[in-house]
């Protein structure tokens, strides 16, 4: 047994987190920064932070993850990190020549209270920021929220620093995709362009964290939202923020700063939340939904009706980030599956918990929800009453193996399989992919467990 000390005996814990279902803010900020074109993320803390974040993101994407650090020593921790950050800015612009540096803080620099805007001003007045180049920042204390909060804060910083308007509106929508995969960002953008809607997406990590192998390394790959696009986003007709936890802060900041109305939606995972997304784009941009999208939707509905027998009533445990957890739960409920154990590590709040409760209102029996919770508690629930399917990040495979439960990897991080950065799980097509993954897991199990007599050719 891999988790041999986990027992069904649940004892209340107030202080000890065991097997977290979240990590810290700065990694989310680093990920968001990579979605700005020509941007080098910079971690203002000790060098272990950036080493860990780069490692974790690299294991997930199997791609270069470039970032820099202020490399605090004990001295910097006592006297403040200004000298380190100013030196770092100088070295980065001299050596690596990015267009923009996105600074995020850490528990270390937040605890000592470094004032980043003041340090950026100092770097500017010392002539360390070349003309036409930018340094922006987000405060991302590791002891508040989770990696999703860090993503949200850095995405909001893109609005705070760059979005501007002269009062003239342009026919374009801002799309804030949330803490999702590069492939998801491509798919969300594709859906907009399929509807002939011009869009500005930020951040956008597609072609940054799923780039090609050509024999030439580009420190700053082709993808990412440009600073000019970010500036222009203040003149868009409207903003759709996907995922209340990851994207709403940026969307609302855009609304108050540039008077661009914002609609906050769930991530477009599954039939119903994709419907809401397409419908919101249609209304906001004043366009008709093309037949091509009706076809995609119809194919999904068709597949669901075809495979419903193997989905209906299946008990599912999901552990994931809040925006994904909510939309995925709604998707499973729409398939007549029974999502019964729901855990996120992020402190996503009472409103979120109520939405999650609402999503399972029609699921019969006892549904257990823990916000925030950890994977140890989640596993203990499974020990008490098992499920038919487990959905979670790679760490959940230890549970899946110990309990012998069919398992679909979903979320962050996925360290041990390919696919997530190339094939989207968003939109109608993404829902088909999720269906395929769930059915593969469930039906492989059915085939494995059937007797020779009951083994079926056709399912």
């Amino acid at each position, binding site marked *: 047994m891999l988790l041999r*000390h986990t027992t069904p005996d649940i004892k209340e814990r107030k202080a*000890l987190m065991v097997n977290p279902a979240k990590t*810290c803010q*700065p990694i989310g900020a680093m990920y968001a920064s990579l979605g700005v074109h020509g941007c080098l993320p910079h971690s203002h803390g000790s060098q272990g932070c950036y080493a860990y974040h780069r490692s974790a993101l690299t294991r997930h994407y199997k791609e270069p993850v470039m970032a*820099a650090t202020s490399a605090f020593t004990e001295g910097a921790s006592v006297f403040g990190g200004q000298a380190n950050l100013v030196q770092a800015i*100088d070295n980065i612009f001299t050596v690596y020549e990015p267009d923009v540096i996105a600074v995020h803080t850490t528990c270390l620099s937040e605890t000592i209270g470094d004032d980043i805007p003041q340090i950026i001003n100092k770097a500017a007045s010392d002539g360390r920021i070349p003309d036409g180049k930018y340094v922006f920042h987000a405060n991302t204390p590791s002891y508040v929220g989770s990696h999703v909060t860090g993503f949200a804060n850095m995405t909001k910083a893109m609005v705070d620093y760059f979005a501007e308007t002269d009062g003239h509106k342009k026919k374009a929508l801002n799309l804030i995709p949330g803490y999702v995969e590069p492939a998801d960002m491509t798919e969300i953008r594709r859906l907009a362009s399929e509807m002939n809607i011009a869009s500005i997406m930020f951040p956008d990590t597609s072609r940054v964290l799923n780039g090609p*192998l050509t024999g030439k390394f580009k420190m700053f790959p082709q993808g990412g939202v440009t600073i000019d696009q970010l500036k222009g986003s203040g003149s868009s007709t409207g903003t759709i923020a996907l995922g209340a936890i990851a994207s709403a802060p940026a969307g609302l900041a855009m609304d108050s700063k540039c008077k661009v109305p914002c609609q906050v939606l769930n991530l477009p995972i599954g039939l119903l939340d994709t419907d809401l997304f397409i419908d919101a784009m249609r209304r906001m941009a004043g366009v008709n939904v093309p037949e091509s999208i009706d076809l995609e939707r119809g194919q999904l509905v068709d597949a669901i009706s075809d495979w419903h027998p193997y989905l209906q009533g299946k008990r599912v445990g999901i552990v994931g980030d809040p925006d994904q957890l909510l939309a995925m739960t709604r998707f499973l409920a729409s398939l007549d599956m029974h999502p019964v154990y729901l855990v996120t590590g992020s402190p996503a709040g009472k409103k979120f918990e109520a939405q999650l409760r609402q999503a399972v209102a029609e699921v019969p029996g006892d549904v257990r929800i823990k916000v925030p919770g950890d994977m140890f508690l989640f596993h203990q629930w499974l020990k008490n009453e098992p499920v038919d399917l487990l959905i979670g990040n790679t760490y959940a495979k230890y549970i899946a193996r110990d309990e012998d439960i069919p398992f679909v990897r979903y979320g962050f991080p996925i360290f041990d399989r390919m696919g997530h950065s190339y094939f989207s799980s968003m939109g109608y097509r993404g829902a088909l992919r999720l269906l395929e993954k769930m059915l593969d897991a469930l039906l492989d199990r059915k085939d494995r467990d059937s007797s020779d007599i009951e083994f079926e050719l056709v399912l």
Partner: protein
Amino acid sequence: MATAANKKDPTCEDDCCELDGLDVRTVKKKLIEKYPPKVARKRDKQIVVNRIDPEGRVPTIQSNVRTVPGLISQRGCCYAGCKGVVLGPTRDIINITHGPVGCGFYSWLTRRNQTDPDSSPDGHNFMTYCFTTDMQDEEIIFGGEKKLKQAIQEAYDNFHPKAIAVFATCPVGLIGDDVHSVCREMKKKLGINVFGFSCEGYKGVSQSAGHHIANNGIFTHVVGTDDTVRDGEFKINLLGEYNIGGDAFEIERIFEACGLTLVSTFSGNSSIDQFANAHTADLNLIMCHRSINYVAEMMETKFGLPWIKVNFIGAEATAKSLRKIAQYFGDDGLTQRVEAIIAAELPPVQAAAAEIRPRTEGKRAMLFVGGSRAHHYQELFAELGMKTLSAGYEFAHRDDYEGREVLPAIKVDADSRNIEELEIHPDDTRFNPRKSDAQIAALNGKGFKFADYEGMMPEMAQGALVIDDISQWETERMIALFKPDIFCAGIKEKYAVQKHGIPLKQLHSYDYGGPYAGFTGAVNFYKEIDRMVNSRIWRYLKSPWQQNPELAAKYAFE
């Protein structure tokens, strides 16, 4: 080139300055010419052209100094060295990270230290778990000691471990939580061993500080707490072997076949019970000198067991190390068994190398990793007929490059001074020199070296480029200038290098393969390098239309 006051560096003559067809002095210039002057001056001392003079002396290399902010180094932090590297691989200690969630999360199962819990009677294994106090802002403001106490209690209530260790992260040191007093209090209350490490990430200049702090803690709180003398002949400890990919299992297999009794390994496939008992062994073997030499030194001073440097990476190196151990014990039976094992196991390994060698001969490698692997793995490449053009460590000190003879000349700077050096004295009752002065003199007379590590540079080629704490920029330059056939580093570097069309072998995680130690491991490594440098995919980077962009005038169906 910087020169220590009491050391005369060999100078670089023209004949040693050609590296793979390039003038290595020009190469060095190209690595640093883009840097701001202050940075260039610093890096100049950390990039050295290797030169070995007739007395075997090598140039001075600046190392174990601060990372340059913004330069993109490979290094991690003190916590990573302490919790991640040294204490992480021990299965039966509950390691609680006291801090925000990230540090504990990132060090959860990511170093792939294998362990066999069923080899301990109690079967404890907490390595698959991550324990953290998940510090929140109210603890940053009001202090986290209360939460830590409660967390230790909850760990005890849920898991009943025999030991709990606590690791401090950056904010813990800043807000002044006293993890040690909390641990003392809880040790008394729970009646199990509870001990803490002040391994805040900002301490020192790299992981290295964390290794030292881990060594100090394990020596203070664990080593020597169990005096049971176990059965068995030729008792040894293996230090600085972390069982990545099962390396320690292969070494254990060889030891057992030779009739050596392994008392403890620090810390691959290890149990805290073995550490407690380690002082009853008769010899310490050091694999990774950088991360573990402190505990060997302290054991020698307090208990009298000497240490020697070994290397089980490379088939020849394995044979050499086994012979060295046999020579120490001076027992005919042991010597015969060691020779029999080498005679049985070395030839198939050499045959495997010979089969692969035509496909690897003459290929060129670069290694930038760790505190010993950049040295050890050169052996394996040499066995494949490959040449190491350039190498360097991520977090080593001068002695790892130049040999321990430079130790007295190393200047202790402010960053290193902050890492405690324990003052150790011989134990009143348990100090027992394992060899008499006469025996030591006799062994020394035969060329046997105690407490010695000659370092990486004396074993590298003349003119090879040695780069300490290489930056992303220098990595790119080296690749552009030399186009090596394989590059060795870690996960952060892997895909940036591979985008150039050059395979990168991870020497921290082994790319999820291994073992690479010992005889079996050598064959695994040969096959892996053969696969990597000869993979077809490197031929397919360009599409047909990129290779031949001209439009053809003839069509197949004409």
